[in-house]
């Protein structure tokens, strides 16, 4: 709030808490301590990023507030013509979806017939997955079926996606499958 610069002594008396109480003017910042002045909401000094709720398909806009590389809050975007700042319980929970102690953060591996997860290096896992795709494709690729029809597909590998993946991610999945000849490609969009 901007204050007028010069009101002199009248102003000083006017800001005296007793005078303010008598004149019903409220307490004003004269009653605010230095400590209080140093306190801020957790959204003070945040970087705010525009996002979309990942749950249902209404497409509510969210504002993601970030401080020191950490998300500190997620709220509805009041500018959005769709949600106008509001969110439902799931939307309001996006923060806990992102910041959650139960989240997976390391690559895990279970051997065939194994009884436990093993922590593995992500690059190792990626290499091994690529080998599995390669090996399965080499072994099962069908150029022509038993009736001589041009099939050129890899029938032993499937992709099953959720509908919270981005459009661009889906684009890459389908493109990859077309290249590799994978035809079992499905998404939650059907069921």
């Amino acid at each position, binding site marked *: 709030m901007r204050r007028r610069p010069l009101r002199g002594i009248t102003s000083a008396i006017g800001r005296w808490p007793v005078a303010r109480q008598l004149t019903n003017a409220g307490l004003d910042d004269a009653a605010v301590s230095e400590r209080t002045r140093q306190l801020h909401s957790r959204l003070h000094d945040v970087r705010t990023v525009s996002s979309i709720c990942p749950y249902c*398909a209404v497409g509510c806009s969210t504002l993601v507030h970030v401080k020191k590389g950490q998300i500190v809050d997620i709220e509805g975007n009041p500018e959005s013509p769709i949600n106008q700042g509001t969110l439902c*319980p799931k939307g309001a929970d996006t923060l806990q979806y992102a910041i*959650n102690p139960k989240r997976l953060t390391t690559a895990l591996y279970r*051997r065939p017939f194994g009884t436990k997860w093993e922590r593995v290096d992500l690059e190792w896992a990626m290499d091994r997955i690529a080998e599995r795709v390669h090996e399965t494709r080499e072994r099962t690729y069908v150029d022509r079926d038993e009736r001589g029809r041009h099939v050129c597909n890899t029938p032993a590998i499937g992709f099953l996606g959720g509908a919270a993946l981005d459009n661009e991610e889906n*684009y890459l999945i389908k493109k990859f499958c*077309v290249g590799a000849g994978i035809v079992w*490609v499905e998404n939650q969009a059907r069921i």
Partner: protein
Amino acid sequence: MGSNFAECHPVAFRFVMRARETGAEVIHVDPRFSRTSACATQYVQVRAGTDIAFMGGLINHVLQSERWNTDPFFKEYVAHYTNAATLIERDFRDASDLGGVFSGWEEDYYCPDSWQYEGTQRVIHVDSQYKEICEMLSTQGQGMSSGRSIGGPPPKDPTLEDPRCVLQRLKRHFAEYTPARVAEICGVPEDRFVAVAESMLRNSGRERTCAIAYAVGWTQHTTGPQIIASAAILQLLLGNIGRPGGGIQALRGHATIQGSTDIPTLYDLLPGYLHMPTCLPIDETLDSYVWNEGGATGHWAYTRNYLVSLLKAYFGDAATPENDFGYEFLPRITGDHSFMPMFVAMHKGELEGLFLMGQNPAVGGPNAGFVREALGKLKWMVARDIFAIESATFWYDSPEVKDGTIAPEDIGTEIFLLPGATVTEKDGSFTNTHRLIQWHDRAVNPPGDARSESWFMYHLGRRIKKLYESSTDPKDRPIQALTWDYPTAGEHDEPIVDYILREVNGFVWAPTWDERKQVTGFAELKDDGSTACGCWLYSGVHPGVNRAASRASDDLYISPGWGFSWPSNVRLLYNRCSADPQGRPWSEQKKYVWWDETRGRWIGEDVPDFPVDKRPDDPGDPEAGGLAALSGDSPFLLKPDGKAWLFFPFGMKDGPLPTHYEPWETPVPNLLYHEHDRDPMTKVWHIDENPYNGIANEEFPYVLTTYRLTEHHTGGGMTRWNSWLSELQPAAFVELSPELAAEKGIAHTGWVTLSTSRGDVEALALVTRRMRPLTVQGRTIHQIGFPWHFGYAGLVTGGSANVLLSMVADPNVSIHERVLTCNIRAGRLNGNGGHP
């Protein structure tokens, strides 16, 4: 109908409530009384799975009503914008004449020759067996659609009086759907049904419009697509399509479930609803594909432009005129490769490796016990998710392992469980339920080994390309040819997602990104390989600037500057219908898009979903083909005749008109068609692990329907690990009526066990007046509701409703049925009763 709008899409439901505050009538027709019902002005409880009987009743009531027959608005709209006036072949016979099937029924498939417009023929180019096409393909877009119509233009009767015209066929078909029949089939009192019909009539016309909203309560039936079709017919008859406040709103359930249909990870589609080629001769070459799929008139006449541009985006310089632009690289589908057959193939060991990316079928798949068994037969699986979902932990955590049926040591699946990134940790776009593409920015980096799916696919693709780099085997050419040149950034070499969207939008082909010039829309796409476009329908989303990220919010009516809506930023589809055939607004109140004679173009609130300078009195030039073939009063540009279809000459596998069939599992026979209780083309899987309860099985006398809660999401993979939401909905429960509870000795909050032929599941009982017994065909029918979010992992656990469901699917799009029959008893699975 078919939606619990208030609880499943609560933020959007605010607009319904606002409309109600300004006088709108809100009608909720549903098996369960929910918060949506509580907010409605009329609530009608129906038996689950009888939607076509109800909708058919509305159609019949409208067609018989005085208002519809006296207000000239309806007939003017219908005569010009639909195929109501078109005559159908002479030898067409209705289901009411043939006991529940239409003419062309060949005992296991339809030959739709008699469904055609008079004088036209559906011709399939290249020698293919029609039966083979019908049998092999599962989807709406294929099979019955293959080929193109030859002959015509068909005769029309603008008076709509000819008994062979579509409108009269429609009238005849639905004549038996009387209020009395609706009452008997749906369990709805006649007066309640008539009140709904009268309300819709009252609120339709020049000055008023009605909208219908539905969700998976309509799609997940053996008759799902036909239920939606019945809504389309009703809305077209009432003049409610393409006009503000009208339409049919599909309330889709996931952030980009619309996007994942448009840019599909579905087996039968390529981006932009181009069909995946099959192994049949019709799809052998680019020419035969385009001939059969393209059509001569309407938007699909440009199929070659869209497909060649897609091939160019996929294969770049390797796509040349000499190799049909790489058309030969496309793998061919050989049957139904959708969700349920995928698990059947997995169970048989035919499918060895699975990438599971953000779906939880161990909870969310019908016949979930079978799904888990199938997962255990895979050789390898890559599961990518945020949490350790049931589908990744089934090998040590499932009920089957816990009860000793199977041990981890017996399950040979090699599993990679890789952490995914949440929406806030990546750039990308979602397409919401009204086709609005909205960009989200990355706020922070994902933790630890967590990565986006873009990162995963990009780097997997890079590795696979490397493995095949030096191959000379022709089968490896598609992998080598695939363009995979996305720039990367950051410490993990994350692909820059903006470039993927640029490719989706399309550009003038050039070898490097620097030289590529973005196109501004799909009209610029060429069929000569000079343009590349990943999804023609999305063209315009990134014409050099990312319009999905646009956030102009000054106009709160249709907000054209907020995001980008396909096609071409049109917000209201078929908006040509908002003007009369002469191009004038139907009324001042419902003015939206209209013809401006002085400027010689369509103008209004929205981007016209129509050629902008095509005059309303343009007669169309059939010789010209494409959009030029259509007349100025033909708003439905995707249809070859430019008209919305009240009768489907092709496209639907199970009949040219929606017909009431009972659900696959039902307590009663079909009252309308005695010879066919159920949709005769229903897809079934007769395997030991998937038995069906059948019709009127005394062992399973109750109707069960599954549904969602506000606080959980689908199979729970995104919510059951969150303490706030888990606290709000901490347990699996079923809703049942006090009458049924008394009959079965079930106490409120006590344990119950539900059973079907597939399995048994326990849950807590919520005994509530929200569920009421219905009187159907003279007997009492009890219905039970069961939320399907719960599983055995996460912060809250509970019985999975999907263990009870069978694998059974509709013939058009292979979606399972969520309505079934079951039994219920007091007590827990292991036989103990009592409270939790």
